[in-house]
């Protein structure tokens, strides 16, 4: 006979097994690991907070495993930005005392996750004045820094810990005195006539002749009139890209291709390698990274920034901005963005000076490269020489030059604006909210200080020694 005590034990056992199984199942299921989320994540990672393995590569790997995860996603970007404080700089044992103050070889020393109460701009979780740990005596070397607090080093448009490509002293001097706006302002890589501007980065694609509507090779039941009309007028048909080139894909480890109605990224990435690669590095596409599957694609409803109500459930992929069958890169550069983004900066774009220029360019009243769309700044073209093939392509990682804002100077602003104006504008958050309609209220003093120091200091400057070059 089962006593009430036995029943209680049995109930406890069943509840424990069920609960334990549920927890283990959650642990092993990316996208369902919310019971283990120990604190709100930074804005950079919140989209993938339910894919624990994105950062926790190994359950017992400790800090090194976490470091590997950071480098896996951010290492290439740091390398490209010529990181001023790379981990390798601290390998020399003469820096041991510095590492004891702040272990600059681990990203986690300054960027801890799940610590919203400690996190401030750029996901930094150490106090703003961390520069003082190593550069406390900077005022002895630079009189301009006397009396300055260390909290302002990285917050006043003067220095960044990682990317100082637009802020180093000789760069400031070189670009001093530039006019607010160039005489003929053009987005350089868009207007570059001598550089291949690639949509397709595939080397293997054989050029084919144009295809007519009756040459479509998709299943008959899928060849709707509208689809055929759009495709046959599109650049893909003109270049010989047939239905099966995009819709027939290999799934998983399969060797055979199968027809897929909505191939998503897989349909595009075979040819648009650079674009697809950069897309999954950014916030639009990071949930589609192969190692994070099966996370569902990003939806505006998941974003932390204000998004339009009508767009909340839209899944973000290539076709959400470019359309399908009738691909439209002009629409993708502005209208597509404003179809979702509903923050002050985005809303202020319409009617802004940059918008007027964009309208002039797209209506062919002004030259290519003279307009400034959302993508001009947030998805700029970048130059690459990979594979010995100089070309430019649109960087689809819209976060690549977003923070710190000075990263935008060289990739975007500097094409049309003088350095002083660009730094001032980027240092004025209110102006950013107005989408740069108006003049900056901020004044970054870096250029002025660099000029004064140059004038007060010695003679020639190291480059002047070897400046004379023979004419080719």
């Amino acid at each position, binding site marked *: 006979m089962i006593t009430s005590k036995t029943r209680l034990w049995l109930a406890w056992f069943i509840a424990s097994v069920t609960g334990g199984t549920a927890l283990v199942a959650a642990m092993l299921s990316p996208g369902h690991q919310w019971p283990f989320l120990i604190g709100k994540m930074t804005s950079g990672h919140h989209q993938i907070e339910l894919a624990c393995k994105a950062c926790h590569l190994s359950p017992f790997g400790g800090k090194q495993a976490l470091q590997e995860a950071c480098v896996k996603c951010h290492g290439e970007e740091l390398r490209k930005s*010529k990181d001023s404080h*790379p981990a*390798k*700089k601290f*390998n*020399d*044992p*003469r820096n*041991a*005392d510095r*590492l*004891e103050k702040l272990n600059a070889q681990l990203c986690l020393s300054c960027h801890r996750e799940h610590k919203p109460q400690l996190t401030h701009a750029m996901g930094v979780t150490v106090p703003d004045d961390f520069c003082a740990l190593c550069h406390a005596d900077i005022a002895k*070397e630079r009189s301009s820094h006397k009396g300055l607090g260390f909290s302002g080093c990285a917050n006043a448009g003067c220095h960044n810990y990682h990317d100082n*490509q637009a802020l*180093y002293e*000789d*760069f400031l001097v070189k670009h001093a005195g530039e006019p607010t706006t160039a005489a003929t302002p053009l987005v350089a890589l868009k207007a570059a006539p001598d550089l291949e501007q690639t949509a397709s980065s595939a080397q293997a694609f054989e050029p084919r002749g144009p295809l007519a509507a009756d040459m479509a090779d998709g299943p008959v039941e899928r060849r709707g009139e509208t689809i055929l009309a759009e495709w046959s007028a599109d650049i893909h048909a003109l270049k010989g890209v047939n239905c099966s080139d995009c819709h027939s894909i290999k799934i998983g480890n399969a060797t055979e291709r199968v027809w897929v109605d909505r191939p998503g990224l897989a349909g595009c990435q075979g040819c648009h390698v650079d674009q697809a690669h950069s897309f999954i590095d950014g916030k639009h596409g990071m949930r589609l990274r192969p190692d994070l599957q099966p996370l569902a694609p990003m939806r505006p409803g998941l974003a932390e920034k204000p998004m339009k109500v009508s767009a909340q459930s839209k899944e973000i992929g290539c076709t959400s901005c470019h359309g399908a069958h009738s691909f439209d890169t002009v629409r993708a550069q502005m209208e597509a963005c404003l179809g979702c983004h509903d923050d002050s900066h985005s809303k202020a774009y319409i009617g802004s000076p940059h918008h007027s220029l964009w309208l002039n360019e797209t209506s062919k009243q002004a030259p290519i490269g003279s307009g400034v769309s959302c993508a001009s700044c947030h998805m700029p073209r970048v130059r690459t020489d990979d594979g010995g093939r100089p070309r430019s392509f649109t960087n689809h990682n819209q976060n690549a030059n977003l923070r710190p804002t000075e990263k935008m100077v060289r990739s975007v602003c500097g094409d049309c604006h003088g350095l002083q104006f660009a730094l001032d504008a980027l240092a004025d958050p209110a102006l950013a909210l107005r989408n740069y309609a108006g003049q900056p209220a901020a004044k970054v003093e870096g250029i002025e200080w660099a000029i004064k*120091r*140059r004038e007060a*200091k*010695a*003679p*020639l*400057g*190291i*480059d*002047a*020694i*070897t*400046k*004379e*070059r*023979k004419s080719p």
Partner: protein
Amino acid sequence: MTSRSHSVRRISVLAGLGAASTLLMGFLGFGESKGGLPFKDAADMLHAVMEADRRVYTRVVVQRLTLQDKVITASEHYADEKALPLPAQMFRLGAEAAAETTKKFSYSLLSLTPINKQNNARTDVERKGLDAVANNKGESFYGDEQLGGKRYFTAVYPDTAVAEACVKCHNAHKDSPRHDFKLGDVMGGVVIRIPVSD
């Protein structure tokens, strides 16, 4: 207890003492690496390669192409300027690359009058060594020091102005604390460190 077990015990004790004294000597930095090659010899050999490469790059690449043939410039902002890295940068880039592949030694180019203040002496041994090589031409300096809880055998070798380019650039640079270098002057030192203990 048998005489055999006594012998085994004696051998064990002696072996233990031997191992302990070897470890102690290693810990105290008596100049012998575990493989038998004295640290000083290892450092001297490493320096011979570094110094040769540095001299060749300075004379055959930088000096020749910038000051003589004038076909390219050398700049501390070599990527932006599409120029050659300066000899000191070339040396540092190599040191950083080597440090990514081995922890068996590290090296750096330092000075008591550096253009980049991060290359000033930071430890007592660095200060003593740089001072010694500056005041005793042709001599090297050897010492040991503890950094971050580890002991290091540290060697400092004179870094001499081997080409006109060295002198001209250092004398002209806005951040150089010294502007009267002459060809053949000791401008700083190459510091090589070999960990004595793990």
